[in-house]
């Protein structure tokens, strides 16, 4: 079956040694025993933690194991931290959640007509994939190094925005990775014949990047015959747009859509 031996590493078991018999494994185990008499490789978890500063550089224990060799804890995907102050309620985290564990709930501080909504995370469902913090356009939802969330109650697994905000204030190391946006991202496009100029998109846009501009009075639209109607159409400022799609979902006439046209 083997065609040629190029690029192959044929392995062969060594001959059994009738003299040493079991001496080699016993000697190996004894060597390990002597090495770990000073300090075994175990990190005694509740008392020592891998994220302790002492493990940030490598601690070579007597057995030689480079403990802490991978401990860059800034990247860790643990409990989320939410900065409520900078949250723009764009829904992107909830949209991007594969497990549907994020729910947008009202927090105090918004104006009564358009209440401010921030993510509430159910850690009973969360898979810590980090898609939400990747999607967050403002960087207000990040992940921290906190990983201990055991609780006796299921209801305590649901972290309200305020609780997530407390995590933010606790100044844990946070995941610094912010994904760059792709260059030719799709944009919000308008189908002008369908637009009725209702202002819903501009009203609900979380970044206020939609402005309603006056356009000449079109023909053949409902209400076109009314004398005092001022016709407006939305114009999206692409550099501010975070591509959350809120405008598309609130548009009553389905005249906004994703597109890649310049």
């Amino acid at each position, binding site marked *: *079956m*083997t*065609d040629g031996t190029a*690029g*192959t*590493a*044929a*392995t*062969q*078991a060594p001959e059994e*040694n*009738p003299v*040493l*018999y*079991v001496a*080699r*494994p016993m000697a*190996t185990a004894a060597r*390990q025993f002597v090495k770990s008499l000073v300090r075994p*490789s175990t990190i005694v978890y509740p008392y020592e933690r891998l994220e302790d500063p002492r493990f940030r550089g*490598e601690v070579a224990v007597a057995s*030689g*194991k*480079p403990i802490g*060799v*991978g*401990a*860059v804890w800034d*990247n*860790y*995907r643990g409990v989320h931290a939410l900065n409520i102050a900078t949250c723009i309620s764009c829904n*992107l985290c909830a*949209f*991007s959640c*594969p*497990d549907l564990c994020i729910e947008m709930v009202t927090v105090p501080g918004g104006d009564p007509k358009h209440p401010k909504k921030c993510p509430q995370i159910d850690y009973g469902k969360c*898979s*810590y*994939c*980090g*898609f939400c913090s*990747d*999607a967050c356009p403002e960087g207000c939802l990040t992940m921290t190094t906190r990983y201990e969330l055991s609780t006796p109650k299921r209801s305590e697994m649901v972290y309200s925005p305020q609780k997530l905000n407390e995590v933010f204030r606790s100044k844990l190391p946070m995941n610094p*990775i912010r*994904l*760059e*946006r*792709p*260059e030719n*991202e*799709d944009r919000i496009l308008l189908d002008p014949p369908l637009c009725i100029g209702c202002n819903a998109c501009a009203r609900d846009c979380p970044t206020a990047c939609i402005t309603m501009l006056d356009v000449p009075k079109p023909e053949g639209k409902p209400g076109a015959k009314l004398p005092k109607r001022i016709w407006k159409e939305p114009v999206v400022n692409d550099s501010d747009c975070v*591509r*959350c*799609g809120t405008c*598309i*979902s609130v548009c009553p006439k*389905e005249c906004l*859509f*994703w597109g*890649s046209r310049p």
Partner: protein
Amino acid sequence: MSEMWINMGPQHPMTHGLWNLRVQIDGELVRAVDPEMGYLHRGIEKISEDRHYNEVITLMDRCCYVAGMAWEHLYILGAEAALQVRPPERADYLRVLCDEFQRLGSHLMWYAAFVQDLGLMSPFLYGMRDRDLVLDLFQSFTGARMTYEYMRVGGVRNDLPPGFADRSRKVLDWLDDRFREYDALCLGSTIFRKRCDGLGVLKGPEAIAHGVTGPMLRAAGVKRDLRKDRPYSAYDRVDFDVALADSADVTGRYLVRMEEMRQSVRILRQVLDWLDHHPGPVVADRLPRWLGAPYAPVGAEGYLLKRNYPKGLGLSAIEEPHGEALSYVVNDGGEHPYRVKFRSPVFANLSAASTYLVGYHVADIPPIMGSVDVCVGEVDR
């Protein structure tokens, strides 16, 4: 004692997972076996149909709990083939890095479980201890120890953190030393050799007919390694050898896996050197919007937009730590894959169980199944 059936599983130390091996025994001899799967069936293929292309990645990590990164790679290659996306070169190398670290992690886990099956106690801890270093490294650049969610359609999530290469090299040096220790503990022990030589023999032609792949096949002397035969990502640009053994038994599989770990270390050194000198983007810059992150889910007050994405069927095959893994992703132009199907190497290796278990002792079942390296997560999916 006449012949009787015993159930090895679903809760049994031999299974290393959740499955049931029904064994017909005559005294201590195995007469027939019948593996029963499905205890861990989570319907990953079905759930994938309801998920966004990138969101399937979260399932892939849970597909095989010892080789999550390899399965991410497998799926991503299939999805990229279906969607016609090319990752940048640095992402290719990063994927090879992930794959090979995952192979190290998986084989170390295999080593730990395998020696435990033989009753060796200390090496089990040694294997787990050394695997932990690999997990440490994974955690330092993906942010998680087992559920990485690192690869994306069109690249990988993020670049390596500073200092990663040095730390990895330290771990690789450490592992190089450990492999000698492993060999002393296993091959140097006469009891080990007496237990494993000539055990679970599965010769080449029979192995091919039964679809057995991976280290089991290479231990039978068949040189088939998709990394060489059908190079994906950057495997055509790194130098390594295919580990082979000709004894086709448990010792042969041990030797092949050990040699594969050494080759992985060799590949990793090359990849780390390359990555040091070739900075660059890690995600394809011309990604379609729907692969980014957000979209309006079903059930939300929104409209799904059906678009004319390139339709097609993407086939991908990688050499997973356990063997040949295949997947196809059918893309019908929607936001979700139309159909995702995975071929798990362990699935096929287990389906051939009667060829290498019958005729041996009951006490031989754990080492033989240990040498198969069962990961039930990917069998049941």
